[in-house]
């Protein structure tokens, strides 16, 4: 399996940030939530999820903390940082602008 392209990777980053912006979540929950919210359209592969989470943490956009999970197990919870929020807003605006632009182009036909 090849690595996701930059666009897809950037998109995954945005989805993760958006998800943890609501409340801190662990990896499994993040994947589940993206799947549910997208009505099973977006399936996040674990092989991409964890490297992305660690990369975001490395960049300081999210931070991790160990906490109790819903089934009383220790789990690593990721939460959005201030810098992450700024980055997310910027990326979100970018994305909306881009998708609107693509939408315009698609409407022509």
């Amino acid at each position: 399996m090849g690595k996701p392209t930059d666009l897809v990777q950037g998109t995954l980053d945005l989805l993760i940030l958006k998800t943890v912006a609501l409340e801190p979540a662990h990896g499994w929950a993040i994947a589940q939530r993206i799947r549910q919210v997208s009505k099973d359209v977006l399936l996040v592969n674990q092989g991409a999820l964890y490297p992305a989470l660690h990369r975001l943490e490395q960049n300081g956009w999210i931070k991790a903390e160990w906490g109790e999970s819903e089934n009383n197990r220790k789990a690593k919870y990721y939460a959005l940082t201030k810098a992450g929020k700024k980055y997310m807003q910027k990326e979100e605006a970018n994305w909306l602008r881009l998708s609107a632009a693509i939408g315009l182009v698609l409407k022509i036909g």
Partner: protein
Amino acid sequence: MRWFDKLRMGTRALFRHGAVERELDEEMRFHIERQVSENLAAGMSALEARRAAMIEFGGVESMKEEVRETRESNWIHDFVQDLRYAGRMLRNSPGFAAIAILTLALGIGANTAIFSVVNATLLKPLPFRSPEKVVALWQTESAPGSYPLTGEDYLGWKAENRTFESMSLYSWPSHSNVTAGSVPEGATVVRTEANFFTLLGVSPLVGRTFASGEDHNGGAHVALLSYPFWKSRFAASRDVLNQTISLNGEWYQVIGVMPAWYRTPAEAELWVPLDMSKKNLGMRGSHSWRAIGRVKQGVTIEQARADLKTIAEDYQKQFPDNNRDVDAIVTPMREDLVGDFSTQILIMFGAVGLVLLIACANVANLLLARSTSRQREIAVRSALGAGRGRLVRQLLTESVLLSLAGGLFGVAIAFAGVAILRAELPDTVPQPNPLAVDLAPLLFTFLVCLGVGVLFGLTPAVQSSLVDCGNALQSRGAVGASATRRGRWLRNALVACEIALSLALLAGAGLLLRTFAHLRSTDIGVRGEHVLTAAVRLPEKQYKTLDQGTEFFDRLVAKLESSPGVRAAAIASKLPLRGGTNGYIQIPGQQTDSMSGPLVEFSSVSADYFHAMGIPLLEGRELSKEDFEVTAALIREEVAADKAGQDLKELAKKYVLPAVINQTMAKTFWPKEDPLGKTYQNWVAFRVVGVVGDVKQSRVRDKAMPETYRALAWDMGEPSRPFSIVVQGAGAPGEATNAIRAAVQSLDPNLALFSVRSMPQILAESMQDTSYEAVLLGTMAALALILASVGTYGVMSYVVGQRTNEIGIRMALGARPVEIMAMVLREVFSVVGAGIVVGLIGSIAGSKVMKDLVVGVAPFDPATYVGVSLLLALVAVTACYMPVRRAMRVDPVLALRYE
């Protein structure tokens, strides 16, 4: 905050590596378990739920690796991990590591040491001011060769030339009695014109060099010390400038010390000003002095040469008696200093280059053999998620670690090697620059080895990309057949190259060893096993006349002969193999083209010389007491006539002196006649009274020259020149040495003994060059042989190991051990044979370079080449013996299972 968080996480990843890894595991486990419980909730069975979760999650290890890759600090961590891993790998195969490191160390170390010598002598500029402008000056004569300058010609050249900034004259080294303190000792002294060191542009370490004018009026009594002399006699004290030393009974003020690195030109322990008066420099026709010159800026050496040639041609017309064939020779200084040695040094350099190539081939081979056996390991690693870059980095670390270790030992070997060379290099090898470990070649050889290590260390990574992972894993023992075949071809070629290169080195060393053996077995014409020699020099002040000199030496010989442990004692003007004085003679009734006949060696000896030296008398008689008296009578008259300014020609006509000649002289001048009673002319007439056996006068490898022996009194007109004492001892050499020392001291406590040497020592010294070359080249050949056998062993044990499976099958199917052996040996011989053939062709083609170094053996001596070929074949077969035996002992059942 971000950079701070990053830093915190980075350092945490690096230093709390275990904790971070545990957390990662924990996180993954949580994810999978959460999925399992979800699957259970969806109604799956426990086993199914776990399986589904695992499949959904995918490769845990490869994902973890990808997570690790995101960490910024991981290159350090990877490096540490790689290093640890590489260290473990090397520790696990200590044989491989030791051989590879040793190979590298020897290659790097030996190369650097020898290259340092080449650099110091041939490549580095001479340590003088504008060294390219400094030349050596010589003259030609009717006989071929370079001759020292005559004083008058030099003064003429110096005054009339238009191309030289300056010129400087200097003497040959002479032994002198030097007293610096209380005990007289022998020291070599060179007299130079005052501007000598100024011309070279060499500054003294302490004090000053000669001032202009110090070479006038007999020369000022000032002395410059060499660094070793200063260190040994004055304990390197700065106070030395207030000291005086006694030189042959005269006092000299110390004015300076030369730096430690200064050796040539004018190598000596002490320098004093040369008396530049015309009287001291001598007449035209008497070639006595050495000279250097500095060509003007903007003038080429060719122009300077042409300039001096014009002057020399002018003199040929002006002074036809003496200068008929005298021309000027102008040689760049470096050529003058190292000319004769450049061939030898370059051969050594070539040999070292070959050793480096062999070392590289060996390392390449070792790594290649290893890489094939590691293919599975690499495949496993990449299947577990190690990225290509990560693998390359790890293999690189291993190679670099290996090369670094080799380099480290190599540096140690280089320093040790240079130290040994500095101590052991014969004095005859010119060392214009101080010998030290050079950084550049060290770096160069190290980089070459590193390059080879990296190149061949990476082959597993390259091969793993050529071979499909799954394939490599499945095919188990018989790893990727095509890659193996290519690898085997390369390895065999490398071994063949090693064998070929080793053969060239062995052949060279073999030729030198045979030369050495030939020289050792050459008869130099004396029975010198128990002969001890020493030199003395009578101070001019006390010993002015022939009678004073004769009296001293007569008493000395008498004293020595009555000493215990002395069988015979004699005095001579020179010794065998130590060079000497020679000149031309005229023979009545024969073509007397004065200067084109063979040169004749002149010796003056005391009565018992032939007995003491063990030179056989072949015809006639030795010199008698009467012979000494008639010779002494002439010399007394000559000295008196010279003082009175009378014509010496008339005096010479009155005398016919007796002389003994050697066999070669008899054969050369009277080939079909009885030489006894024949006469020759050399100022006076000499009548041959006896013929003795030939003695080698300068080098063992040269033929003996014609030589004539005269009564010692012939040279006693000037009793202060150095004479040699020859003692035939009965017991230990030490006993004879003490006897000589005691006898000399009892006659004159101010006399020092120089050059105390036994005849065997003189013989060994005269062959120092050859023995040194033979030892050096022999060492390198031995090194090559070891490396080549290690290489052959490595490859053969690998090849046989790979074929254990096949051998097992063959043996199970009934092949006899002999057949298996034959099969393996066929492969060995094809590789070794190819190497030997290539090596023979190469070294016979290259044998021309050896022709100046070998004596008594042809440069393509068949015995040597056959011998070294057999030796190599034997070594190669021995190297295979162990692996083959191992393979044949294997139980066929085990071999079949062998993976």
